Every structure is written in C-alpha cells, then in structure tokens.
C-alpha cells in the first residue's frame, strides 16, 4: 500500500445473489486524512461499495485494504469496528441504549476495553463530537436530531477508527443544520486527522467541503478528482446523471468559451467579477 493511502481497493467485483452486478472492476484509493465525497445517482453502487468497505458484504473478487487490515479476506468484527466506523443516514437506526453515556460506551465495552479506558474514551469522544457531559444520563431518543447525530458520531469515535463513512449526513436538514454538520466533520478531520468518506447528493456541500470527489456510474468509477476538476466537466458528469452545483453551471453558462468552468463557490465568482 502507498504510505499516503489509508484505503486501497483493487479490481473489486460484487454481484448480488439474484445476479445483479453492483460493482464492476472498481479500483480506488483514499488518502489518509482526506475528506472524500462519493456521489452518483441511486443504484450506481455507492451503498454497495460502502457496505463492502465496512465488511457487511463480502466481495465476489478483488481486494479492500484499510490500513493493514484486509477487509476483503474476511476479518473479525472487532478488527473491523476498530478500523472503520459507519454513521447511518438516520441516527435513530443506530442509537438504542438507555443513556447517552452507555451509547458512546457501548462499542468500546464490546471490544473488551477496561472500564477505565472506556470512561476515558467516552469523555474524549463526547468532547470531540460536541456532546455535553450534562447529557450523559439523558436518553439519546429525547434530544434534538442534531444532537442525536453527534451522539451517533461520538459512539463511532470512541473506537478511534481510521476511516469514518458518513451516509447522507445532510438529508432532511435545512441549510444551517447542513452547514453545522459539515463544519463539524471538517473540524473533526482537521483536529484528529480522521479520514472521512461522505456519501451524498448535495453538490453544494461537496464543492465546499470535500478534497476529492469520486463519481460512480453503474458499479464503476466514472470520475475521480478534486471538486474543481470534476465539476468542470459537466458533460462527463451528466453521463452519471450528476449536475454540478448551480454556481458552477452559472459560470459555465455565462462563459462563452466553455473553457473556464472550474468555479465552485460564490466567493470565487464574486472575487472575479468585482
């Protein structure tokens, strides 16, 4: 493995039992400490890929390495959860303990850490995720959705995984809530160096927060590059039924040459015309 990469996927194939080919000779790498967005229309293979990376599914062929862990070879649940955390789209799908403390402590206890170590990790994870200790005795079901999402993330962080996969973190959120969640993930990435893979349909979020974008189409990688590189190729993007953010489409439409199309946020647009 390249020393900069935390994830390396090579020639990955996966078919469901009914014969549906979900992934077709997919290869990609995630650089350590990066924020990568995985995009593409529903059915393109995003969820299958994330389930394979998380060990929930076993590949038909090919390899998945996360750090030194060979996920594709089949490994223990303990090894998986210590390396890869998965935050569900809906926090209610992963919260089930009676108190916030027990929720965050659940996974470290399950992997056999001492109660002293568990306690240290709960406090550390809650602190990073912005979950106040005053909530430790509360039920995770009785706090706001934003806090529930933070608790879900804290319960993943308490295992200190190398890679965190976040599935559609901004669905159903308004703009302010979406920005808060993404700022939080960005701070987490900067503070702790966690590698983050975000599955999303929100192109504005992708343009603003991702270092890298992987576009999938019919089980294959269609594009892989920086937001500016990816969004500056609207025709290729449309092959994957993905539209660049409005600001990029605006720049591309008012640019009669069609050659300067890498604007990805409003500040760039304004700075240029001012």
């Amino acid at each position, binding site marked *: 493995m390249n020393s900069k990469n935390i994830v390396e996927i090579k020639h990955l194939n996966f078919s469901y039992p009914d014969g549906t080919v979900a992934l077709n000779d997919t290869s990609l790498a995630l650089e350590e400490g990066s924020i990568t967005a995985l995009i593409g229309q529903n059915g393109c293979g995003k969820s299958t890929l994330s389930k394979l990376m998380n060990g929930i599914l076993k590949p038909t062929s090919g390899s998945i390495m996360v750090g030194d862990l060979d996920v594709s070879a089949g490994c223990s649940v303990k090894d998986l959860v210590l390396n890869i955390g998965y935050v569900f789209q809906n926090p209610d799908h992963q919260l089930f303990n009676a108190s916030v403390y027990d929720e965050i402590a659940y996974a470290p206890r399950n992997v056999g850490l001492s109660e002293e170590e568990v306690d240290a990790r709960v406090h550390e994870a809650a602190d990073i995720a912005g979950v106040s200790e005053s909530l430790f005795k509360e039920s995770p079901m009785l706090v706001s959705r934003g806090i529930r999402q933070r608790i879900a993330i804290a319960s993943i962080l308490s295992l200190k995984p190398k890679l965190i996969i976040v599935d559609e973190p901004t669905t159903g959120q308004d703009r302010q*809530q979406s920005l808060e969640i993404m700022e939080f993930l960005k701070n987490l990435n900067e503070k702790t160096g966690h590698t983050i893979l975000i599955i999303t349909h929100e192109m504005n979020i992708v343009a603003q927060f991702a270092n890298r974008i992987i576009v999938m189409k019919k089980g294959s990688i269609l594009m892989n590059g920086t937001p*500016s590189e990816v969004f500056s190729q609207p025709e290729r993007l449309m092959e994957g039924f*993905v539209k660049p953010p409005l600001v990029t489409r605006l720049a591309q439409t*008012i640019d*009669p040459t069609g050659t300067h199309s890498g*604007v990805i946020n*409003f500040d760039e647009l304004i700075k240029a015309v001012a």
Partner: protein
Amino acid sequence: MNAIEIHDLYWKYDGSDKPIFDGLNLTIPAGIFCGIIGSNESGKTTLVECMKGLIPNSMTGVYRGEVKLFGQDVAGEDKNGLPQLAGMVFSDPDAQFTTMSVIEEIAFGLENMGFLEDEIGRRIEWVSQLCHLEGLLEKPPYDLSGGQKQRVAIASVLATKPRAIILDEPTSMLDPKSKDEVFDILRSIKEDLHMTVIVVEHNIEKIAELADEVVLMGGGRVLRHEKTPQFFQAIELLQANSIDVPETIRLEYFLYNKLGIDRIAPVHFDAAVDEIKSLLPRLTGKSVTEAIESMTAGRA
C-alpha cells in the same frame, strides 16, 4: 377565488407549552404554484396540515381562528368534501401506500369515492401517462425506486382530481435525477392542468424556477410572502433564515448593487444568465469573455 384563506390562526398541540401559531394570516390564490420555505421547525409542515384540515380534525390541541380551503372552513361541520378540494403528498411515500400494486394504489381513492369501473380505468390511464408510470402498474409499490414511489403517490392524489395538491417536502428523500422527475411532473401539473400546487420544499433553486409566489416561514410566523421575483429581493432576510438563495439571484443583486441599479432581478436560470451577461461588461469594462476569463484565472 382563493385556494387558502387563513385568518388569525392559533394552534397549540396538547401537551406543548407554547403555540405553533398565534395570529397567523395567509392567503394563497387558486390556480398558482406556491412554494413554502423556511428552516426546520419553522412551522411549514404544521401549516400545510392546517390547510388540509388534518389540524384540527385529526390532531388534538387548542385551535382558534379560521382556515378556509376554496371557501370551505376545514374545521366546519361538513368535512366530506375536503378530500376533493385538496390532496396531500408526504415526503415519505411509503407512509401513504396501502395496497399491493401500483394500479390498486391509484384506484384506492377512486373506489372509496364511489367512481364506476370505466371512469376509474380512464383516470388510471390518464395519471399513469402524466406521471410516467406505464409499465409499473402491476408492480408492488414497495419494490419501486424512491422517485417512482413518489410519482405513484402524486398519481394517486391526481386521480381524484382535487382542486389543489399539497406536497410536504416531496423530494427530500430522493436522488437528484428522481428529484428532477418529480419537479417535471409538478411543472406539468402547473402548466397543463392549471391546478393549485402548494409545496413545502428545501430546494430553493427549483422553487425559484417553478413558483408563482413564495412564503417564508420562521418561528411559526409568515416572515415574507411575495410573488417569486419580488420575494428574492430580500436576500439578507432569506439568508438569516437559513435559505440558500440561488447564486444566479445573488450575483444579479451583487451586480445591481455595484452598478447602482434598482430593479427586481429575473429568477429563472436562463433569464438570470441573460441579465448577468448584459451587466458584466458594464462592470468590468471588458468583454464577457475577458470578464469570465479573469474570473477563473489562477485556478488549476
């Protein structure tokens, strides 16, 4: 004729300390496409539940004031006619499916309303064309994609030919392609059927394209209600309320401000692009090409 008339509405859920609405007034004319936007918990969903009469008829709480749907008081004695006045589509279509096939799903409301078989058949054919459901009629709704499910939910409502269709975040759970498909159907409902469309939506770009009027909700109050171009003049108010104002409109007002122009900006994408193209050379003294090249210079 107004589709919606709300006068001095007060509503507080049982068990809640404070009311959702206290003195809310709103009028939406019949035959228009009205977008309702606002941050989460601003009162949007509760508002459309009041319009449809779900509040107070199916929920318990303290209700005062008046909500009229095409002139009929939704809390009045006669509630039988309400379903034919307005149909409702929710964000999660699974929440409203009750049958085992698409064709049964569409027929369900019609059968309940007592239509004869011939008429039911004609209406199913009509809505399945309108909502592009040909080939899916025999499938179980639960096996469809998210976008297909939402089209079935819309078709089931349209089949009853209500005077208004009210949709609560109909695209929030869909991928971009499915979102576009749903918005294309809403465009057809507006342009071809001239039906009243009231939609709660976070996708402001689509609201700017499709809506005739827009309502901004915040803290249980109507903070702004204008025809769409005028509505987007209040950029600061919208941004303060977590509204993602489309960059086309933001750039137009930025340019107006720089050039000392006082007018209402076009909100449709093509018209906004034409407007921006006409203003850029005035701002920079350069040709459009030069102005854009300078915008993107220095980027890898």
